[in-house]
């Protein structure tokens, strides 16, 4: 790791030196000196940013390009400042059969978040109805069509709830990381590389396309270009599963101030539905 950091540092230094030298040369051969100067300024600005942002510096040391870290951090910081928002998602989940055949399942959901500790997510336009409620005290999954729900006590922040749901309930939100307050660290702690692929358009919105590698997971994210750096697309590739299946999520209809009341996040069982329990995590099937 220190070696990588050293290499990186040397590379940066060399690049800047090259740039400076080129700038000096350009002054003599080019009538337009502004562009090289801007490039130099950008390089220095990037270095300062690295010093100012501990998370960014760490990510860069791990092999994440500074520009990629900067754009990602801008998004996570921005989403972290949103006290209340709703967003629709369209999801594709791949599964791999023993035969090697890949199957995709699609679903869509509407999600509403109120910081620091409220969230509701419901599937929309789907054959299966399922809703998730988190009101800061309890976490509920409700299947209206089946008439069953389960409610369990939950931690008092969204970050802790996401971890609790994953570790204790085996209820996993692949994109849940994006809405946590420490999203940047969650995403980059194990990143071994990251770079800016380029500009792209997702759902009619101009975005920066970033690509990262984190151990057995490769992931990509498309972040809106402009003063509202919102995530617009998110892809996770699982390298430790045969055929490397992917989870893909498109995010649309962002509303940054939805009108919802606190009770919107509270679950009140309708008459006739039955409360059931979670199987303990680790429960296997038949154990002959």
């Amino acid at each position, binding site marked *: 790791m220190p070696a990588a950091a050293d290499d990186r540092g040397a590379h940066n230094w060399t690049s800047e030196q090259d740039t400076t030298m080129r700038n000096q040369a350009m002054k003599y051969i080019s009538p337009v000196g502004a562009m090289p100067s801007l490039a130099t300024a950008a390089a220095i600005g990037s270095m300062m940013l690295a010093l100012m942002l501990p998370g960014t510096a760490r990510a860069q040391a791990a092999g994440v390009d500074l520009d990629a870290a900067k754009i990602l951090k801008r998004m996570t910081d921005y989403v972290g400042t949103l006290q209340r928002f709703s967003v629709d998602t369209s999801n594709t989940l791949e599964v791999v*059969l023993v035969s090697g055949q890949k199957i995709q399942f699609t679903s869509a959901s509407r999600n509403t978040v109120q910081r620091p500790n409220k969230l509701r997510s419901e599937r929309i336009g789907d054959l299966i109805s399922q809703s998730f409620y988190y009101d800061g005290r309890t976490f509920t999954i409700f299947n209206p069509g089946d008439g069953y729900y389960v409610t369990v006590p939950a931690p008092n922040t969204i970050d802790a709830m996401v971890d609790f749901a994953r570790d204790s309930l085996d*209820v996993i*939100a*692949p994109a849940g990381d994006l809405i946590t307050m420490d999203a940047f660290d969650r995403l980059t702690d194990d990143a071994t590389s990251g770079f800016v692929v380029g500009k792209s358009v997702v759902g009619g919105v101009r975005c920066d396309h970033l690509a990262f590698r984190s151990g057995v997971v490769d992931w990509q994210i498309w972040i809106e270009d402009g003063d509202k750096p919102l995530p617009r697309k998110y892809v996770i590739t699982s390298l*430790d*599963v045969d055929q490397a299946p992917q989870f893909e999520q498109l995010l649309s209809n962002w509303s940054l101030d939805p009108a919802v009341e606190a009770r919107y996040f509270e679950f009140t069982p309708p008459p006739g539905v*039955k409360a059931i329990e979670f199987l303990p995590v680790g429960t296997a099937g038949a154990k002959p």
Partner: protein
Amino acid sequence: MISSRKAIAYGAAFVVLFSAEVAPEAPLGLRLVPEAQAIVGAPLTPGSVAGVARRTTRRTVAVVGTEEASEASAQQAAVTQQQAATAQQQSATAAQQSATAQQQTAAAQQQAAAAPASGGALPLGTVVPSLPADCSTTTAGGVEYYKCGANYYRTAFQGSNLVYVTAQP
């Protein structure tokens, strides 16, 4: 071998919440995947970037296949897919991955072979994604059970999936 191929393997826990995730429910899965086959690997897709890095619990995905009515017996095959080690070993090599896959396949076949023979009672705690045909409901101690042949089942959530677990009322 044959029964393991027919077994439906179900990854519980697919996704949820914000991402909306969510795995296909068992009955839907049966329709979509008529040739029931075990699904390789767990989780089927990474739960989350942080999940892979931070997961501390040993995760086991349960599965079990229920034969359709055409099969004389309700043979159950359970495949335990363990992801544990790989989740924490960030630097899994290709060789390790293929070894894991073989291991899972072997485990599936082994357990399928050891599954109870036709028609009998299943071990308590057996998890199935859908109920066999011809069940009746009964309530004991405030809990609803489905009686199907020799077995009683209660409904539960495994991750975000609705499943049925053999139980003793």
